[in-house]
C-alpha cells in the first residue's frame, strides 16, 4: 500500500512541477546553474570511468578469445557494442544516480529541513516548479555527456587493446566499424533521455517529501539512490524489449 501511495504522490508531484511556471528571467538562470552543476559537474567522473571500463571490456574480450577461428576484430566490435548498448546509457546512469541523485536529494532535503521550502510556499512560489523543473530541463543535455562517454569508452578500449598488446590498431578499428547499426545509437539516446527524467525526478521526490532532520536527509539520499537504480534497471529491460526485441 505504501508503494502505491508513493507512486501516486510521485505522479502528483510531476503534475505540480509543470503547473504555474516560475518567471522566465529567474528560471533561465536556475536552468544554467543546474546545467553547470549536473551536466558539466559530472563530466569528469564519467570520462574517467568510461575510459577505464572501455579498457577493461577490451582486455576481458581479448583474454577470452581462445580459438584461432574467432576474428581479431572481435575486440573492437565487442567493446563498441558493450559501450554503446549498455555501459554508456545504463551503467553511467546508475553512477549518475549516486552522484547527481544523492546531490539532488540532499540539497532539496536540506531545504526542507531548514524550512526553505516552507518559505517558498508561504511566498506563493510553486516550490516544485522552482526546484525540480530546472533539473529536468538541465538533464535534457544528459545525452550529450553520454555521447562523450561512448567516445571515451571506445577510445579506452582501443588504448588498452593496442598498448596492452591485445589487438592491433587496425583490427580494433575494423571491429569498431563492423556491422554498425545506427539505430543502436538512437536506442541508447532514447534510453538516456528516459533515464535523465528519472534521475531528475525520483531524487527530487525523496528530497522534497522527506521528514525529519539531518540524519533523515542522509537516509533519504540512500533510499533515493536505491529506487533510482531499481527504476533505471527495470526501465532498461522494458525499453530494450520494446525497441530491440
Amino acid at each position, binding site marked *: 500500500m505504501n508503494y502505491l501511495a508513493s507512486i501516486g504522490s510521485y505522479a502528483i508531484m510531476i503534475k505540480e512541477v509543470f503547473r*504555474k511556471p*516560475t*518567471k522566465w528571467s529567474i528560471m533561465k538562470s536556475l536552468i544554467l546553474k543546474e546545467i553547470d552543476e549536473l551536466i558539466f559537474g559530472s563530466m569528469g567522473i564519467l570520462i574517467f570511468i568510461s575510459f577505464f571500463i572501455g579498457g577493461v571490456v577490451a582486455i576481458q574480450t581479448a583474454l577470452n578469445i581462445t580459438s584461432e577461428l574467432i576474428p581479431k576484430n572481435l575486440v573492437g566490435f565487442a567493446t563498441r557494442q558493450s559501450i554503446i548498448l549498455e555501459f554508456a546509457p545504463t551503467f553511467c546512469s546508475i553512477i549518475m544516480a549516486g552522484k547527481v541523485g544523492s546531490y539532488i536529494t540532499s540539497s532539496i532535503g536540506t531545504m526542507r529541513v531548514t*524550512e*526553505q521550502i*516552507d*518559505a517558498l510556499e*508561504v*511566498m*506563493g512560489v510553486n516550490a516544485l516548479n522552482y526546484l525540480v523543473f530546472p533539473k529536468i530541463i538541465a538533464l535534457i543535455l544528459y545525452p550529450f555527456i553520454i555521447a562523450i562517454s561512448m567516445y571515451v569508452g571506445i577510445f579506452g578500449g582501443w588504448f588498452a587493446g593496442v598498448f596492452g598488446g591485445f589487438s592491433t590498431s587496425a583490427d580494433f578499428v575494423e571491429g569498431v566499424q563492423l556491422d554498425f547499426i545506427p539505430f543502436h545509437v538512437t536506442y541508447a539516446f532514447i534510453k538516456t533521455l528516459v533515464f535523465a527524467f528519472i534521475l531528475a525526478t525520483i531524487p527530487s521526490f525523496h528530497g522534497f517529501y522527506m521528514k525529519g532532520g539531518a540524519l533523515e536527509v542522509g537516509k533519504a539520499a540512500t533510499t533515493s539512490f536505491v529506487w533510482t537504480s531499481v527504476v533505471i534497471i527495470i526501465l532498461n529491460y522494458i525499453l530494450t524489449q520494446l525497441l530491440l526485441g
Partner: protein
Amino acid sequence: MIEVKDVYKSFGDTAILKGISTVFDKGKTNLVIGQSGSGKTVLLKCLLGLFSPDKGTISHDGKIYSQLSPKEQRNLRQDMGMVFQGSALFDSMTVEGNVMFPLEMFTKQSPSEMKDRADFVLKRVNLIDAHKKYPSEISGGMQKRVAIARAIVMNPTYLFCDEPNSGLDPRTAIIIDNLIQEITKEYDITTVVNTHDMNSVMEIGEKIIFLKNGIKEWEGTKDEIFKTDNEAVTSFVYSSELFKKVRKLYIEERD
C-alpha cells in the same frame, strides 16, 4: 485583522486544534503562547494557508482562505510575510539576494528599483554592511533581521513570526522583539508571533492568546497576564523563580 472561528485540525487520530476562536487585531503585536505541542505552529500554518482547517473558518480581512480561487490564494499569500524559527534564508543567495527574492518573483520592478527597496528594508532592520554576505557568514541575530527584512520587503498586510528569538541571547532577542513591534506600528500590519519566551510576552504582548492542548485557555494583554488567576496560565508564564518574583512585586505595587 484575522478572524479565527471555531477552528479544528487533526492529523490522523490526533486532534491538534480543538475549536479555536479568536481575533488577531490590525496594528497590534498578537502573541500566541503555550507549551510545546499545544498547537501554536499548526495554528500559525493554518493562518498562513499551509494547512486547511478540518472545521471552522479563518478570514483575512473578510477573505476566507479556503473559499478563494488558487489565484486569489496566491495573491493573498503575497500579502503575508513570514519569519521562520530558523530564519529559512536561502543558503545559495546573498543577504541582498534573499531580500530581493520576493521582488524578483512577483514584481516588475527594474533591478535598480529592487536594489533600492532591498537597501531600504535592510537599513530599516539595522543591517548596513551585510548585503554581499551569505547567510552562513552572519550571526543568528543578523539572520533573523534579514528574515524580517525579507518578510516586509513586499509591504505585507500580515506578518507571522514563529519563535523569532529562539536561540538568541537575551539582548539580541529584545532587539528583535522591539523591531517586530516597531514595524507592526509603522506599517500598520496584523502581526502574529508564536513564542515560548516570557520576555517577549512582557515586552511586546499587546494581545496574548494562551493555548493548552489545542484549546484557547486564556486571552488578554500583557498587563492582564499579571492579574489573571487562571492556573494554567500562571503555572506556564510564572514557572521560573524570576517571573514569580516579578509577579509578586507587581501585585505588591498594585496593592
